[in-house]
């Protein structure tokens, strides 16, 4: 493949135009698109393993191996329980006790992950990106050191270095913490827990609560705040909470775990309220930290913040001009599609001759609890904080048609937030079946500044849940904003 030479006088000075450390979503995307622009690219990644550590990882990264994809597969798997329950009033006669074989699902999941890992490797090969297996470290502004499996160390020079090493699940420092697992292990447990305790109120915590509950475990969920999912719209948080409870998850708001110990019956869990539980599995879903510890960044002076995240400018450049970083390792917005965007923008900026800033406005996201939550734009609370004119709130809470027959006591909740001055829709959220699929199109409309009037002028698709978003005619409330002085 013909490679464009960079500027005169710089030819062949380096082994590569770009060396990428970490072949997850952001790293792979940046490598491929850079190679597409004619750059000579190498990427290094740790050997494949479902559970990550300092020495194992795998092409595909968190999303493919230990995040979005395996998580979604398990959500699919666990959602069947609800379907079986719902089916009865539709006339289906099923065994009282439908068997669930966790090992079979685990096997099928691992197969799919390995298949995807292979696809990602081929994507890189087909883009003529050189793949190097091993642990990459920064050795200089233009130098990367890769420790290979056999312990041998190889050095490579590159005009630009991109760090895309992502993040890893964190543990809580309490006595017995080694007895707990993180989401990595939770996705690959040998045995399905019968009694699961989850610590954390973020999206990972509620997703695993739904997964294990659907697979038949008792689940106790502990979180610090009054409601889980801090940062999301309060009404949506309440809706999710109600649904989790309705599906049989035991919620422990405003509480935490203080101690774990091993007993014959299982792990003894002590809470800050002095309660005790016995669990087969304790999951820490208490956040993730950027993977920067072993990168040797201090050697070249790349600045990190106190969480260990690499500091970058709007173009994803670190304080060292030849070193860049994208994805979770920068702790901006930790989502796969955002890492993809950052990776693409990086390539355009550095190799496409087209400086491009990633745009963080109106990024939609989803929480795959059961039923799921999906949002784009502002929450009601954020809208009120940022508002310069009155904020119009349209909400709808309804029984989905399926539940009218199944008898499931679960409502779908939707919300649109409109700026009264411009009529623009500035926030949309939904908790209910298919919310993530529904919200994608809403996000397109919002990203381009669609007005409430444009929503209303769209004809509904009947009968769907989504049609509710274009038929919200009655204002639920108007939040009056005092003019800011």
């Amino acid at each position, binding site marked *: 493949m013909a490679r464009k030479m960079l500027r005169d006088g710089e030819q062949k000075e380096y082994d590569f135009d770009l060396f990428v450390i970490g072949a997850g979503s952001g790293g792979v995307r940046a490598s491929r698109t850079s190679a597409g622009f004619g750059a000579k690219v190498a990427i290094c990644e740790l050997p494949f393993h479902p559970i990550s550590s300092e020495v194992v990882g795998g092409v595909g990264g968190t999303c493919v191996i230990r995040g979005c994809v395996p998580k979604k597969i398990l959500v699919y798997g666990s959602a069947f329980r609800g379907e079986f329950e719902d089916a009865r009033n539709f006339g*289906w006669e099923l065994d009282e006790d*439908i068997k669930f074989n966790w090992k079979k699902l685990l096997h099928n999941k691992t197969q799919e992950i390995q298949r995807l890992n292979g696809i990602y490797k081929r994507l890189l090969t087909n883009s003529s990106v050189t793949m190097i297996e091993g642990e990459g470290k920064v050795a200089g502004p233009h130098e990367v050191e890769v420790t290979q499996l056999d312990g041998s160390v190889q050095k490579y020079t590159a005009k630009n270095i991109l760090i895309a090493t992502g993040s890893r699940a964190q543990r809580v420092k309490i006595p017995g913490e080694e007895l707990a697992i993180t989401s990595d292990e939770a996705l690959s447990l040998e045995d399905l827990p019968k009694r699961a305790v989850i610590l954390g109120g973020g999206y990972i915590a509620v997703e695993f609560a739904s997964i294990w509950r659907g697979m038949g475990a008792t689940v106790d969920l502990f979180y610090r705040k009054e409601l889980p999912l801090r940062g999301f719209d309060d009404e949506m948080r309440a809706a999710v909470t109600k649904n989790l409870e309705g599906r049989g998850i035991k919620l422990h708001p405003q509480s935490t775990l203080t101690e774990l110990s091993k007993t014959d019956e299982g792990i003894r869990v002590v809470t800050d309220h002095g309660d005790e539980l016995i669990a087969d599995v304790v999951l820490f879903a208490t956040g993730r930290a950027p993977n920067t510890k072993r990168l040797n960044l201090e050697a070249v002076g790349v600045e990190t913040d106190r969480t260990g995240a690499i500091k970058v400018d709007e173009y994803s450049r670190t304080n060292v001009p030849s070193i860049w970083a994208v994805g979770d390792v920068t702790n901006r917005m930790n989502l796969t599609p955002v890492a993809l965007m950052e990776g693409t923008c990086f390539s355009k900026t550095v190799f496409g001759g087209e400086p491009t800033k990633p745009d963080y406005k109106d990024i939609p996201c989803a929480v795959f609890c059961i039923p799921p939550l999906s949002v784009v734009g502002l929450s009601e609370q954020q809208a009120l904080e940022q508002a310069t004119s009155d904020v119009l709130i349209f909400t709808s809470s309804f029984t989905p048609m399926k539940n009218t027959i199944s008898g499931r006591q679960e409502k779908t909740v939707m919300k649109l937030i409109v700026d009264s001055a411009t009529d623009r829709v500035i926030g949309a959220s939904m908790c209910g079946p298919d919310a993530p699929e529904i919200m994608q199109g809403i996000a397109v409309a919002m990203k381009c500044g669609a007005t409430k009037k*444009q929503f209303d002028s769209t004809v509904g698709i009947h009968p769907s849940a989504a049609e509710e978003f274009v038929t919200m005619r009655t204002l639920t409330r108007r939040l009056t904003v005092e003019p800011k002085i």
Partner: protein
Amino acid sequence: MATSLGVPRLPFSPKTLQTLRRTLPLSLSKSPHSTPLPHPSISRSPFILRLSHRRLSSRPSASGGGENYDFDLFTIGAGSGGVRASRLAANFGASVAICELPFATISSDTAGGVGGTCVLRGCVPKKLMVYASKFNHEFEESHGFGWSYETDPKHDWGTLIANKNAELQRLTGIYKNILNNAGVALIEGRGKVVDPHTVSVDGKLYSARHILIAVGGRPNMPNIPGIEHAIDSDAALDLPARPDKIAIVGGGYIAVEFAGIFNGLMSEVHVFIRQKKVLRGFDEEIRDFVGEQMSLRGIKFHPEESPQAISKSEDGSLSLKTNKGKVSGFSHIMFATGRRPNTKNLGLEDVGVQLATNGAIMVDEYSRTTVESIWAVGDVTDRINLTPVALMEGGAFAKTVFANEPTKPDHRAVPSAVFSQPPIGQVGLTEEQAIEEYGDVDVYTSNFRPLKATVSGLPDRVYMKMLVCANSGKVLGVHMCGDDSPEIIQGIAIAVKAGLTKTQFDSTIGIHPTAAEELVTMRTPTRKVRRNSSSDEQKVKDAVKSST
């Protein structure tokens, strides 16, 4: 526009009405047709104001030419369009009556029911049956996810039909309440137009300033020998028992939806289509795709086979004779061969309302017929026969006539769905229409195995297509077949209706992992169609799924 149409104006400005409400004693506002229930949200509702006006409306008024009418509006048919129009008209202050036939799940000249086709014999029961039948596929999917059953799931038809009908009863009750709460007088019986301002309901006469016809459509079957043995979609939604083996004649959306329903509920299903493929009028590739997917789920298609006769054998089983031969052993034969506007015996021709050859009422852009005081909305006008379109037409009618705000329903970029299995969602132009209209079109397609299928092991796939005007960059149409398509396309429809460009779609971040994210990550056109190129279609390259 408005004036040339002679749209009647409210005799009073809202301000005057406010004053009247204050000055008129409430006792005056007792109307024989009103239902003076306290409205739950009385603060938002112009209830009292409406009552005042109702009294006034039957008096000589500024625009009424001194005539007295029982009602400002008399609506014939309480389906989606009729209920919406009546309710809104009443909210705008009109005195409104609506007539509808008594409730029955199967429609006839003497039975119907508040709620209409959508609620009682269409969208709603159909979707409930789709939900019921879809479980079967989910049971199959569940195996790959580790679930197993000692005995295979069985389906009890009676439970489904009983629960479905209970829900329909509940809904018809809700619709009645909606009318009641809006102060609309509901009259049970068969309405017929007697003159431009008079409706007869089973012989009783009512006068009205405006008459709205919203009687919808009904299934239509061809007149072939033995047709009396066939059922239509009304009956198919309310069968007493599961068909063992059913022939479905027709290739439209009703045919493919019922094929999926019966297949999922474990009938043997044969679909006879006149054409080579199902769903004429839909995007050609979508037609191919949905046919393939349905075949994979066990539906047997008989393309280019037209029905000629039905015969019943001694054992009670039915045979369908077609131009290609005879297929026997059916327990049921269903005809899904189109619907016709319900305009027979409505008295329309006699008062001068012009009908199209298929019986549809001809209306102008404001839904007005050739008789100035008679209007029509919904399927009876055979424009776009969808519930939300009837709602839009009903809403526009009420605004035009009773809110002094002439409004044309906008029939552009109306999204729609087919609840086949897998379902289809679409908005805007098909590839064929886009090329015809714009010439230079970039076609983006994606055909992929969804994540769920990679684990279930089933051959389910998803197909997506986006049509982009090569000159303006505008997205002209989006089509999708696969799980959740109808839900996914709704939001996309807002963007298409708003005239957004492909660049704007691409600037939207995906929601991962979903199927829908594919619609914002289609980076490479599958083909660029150019009017002036030597070859009509330039295959650029197969769409590479940019999934990293």
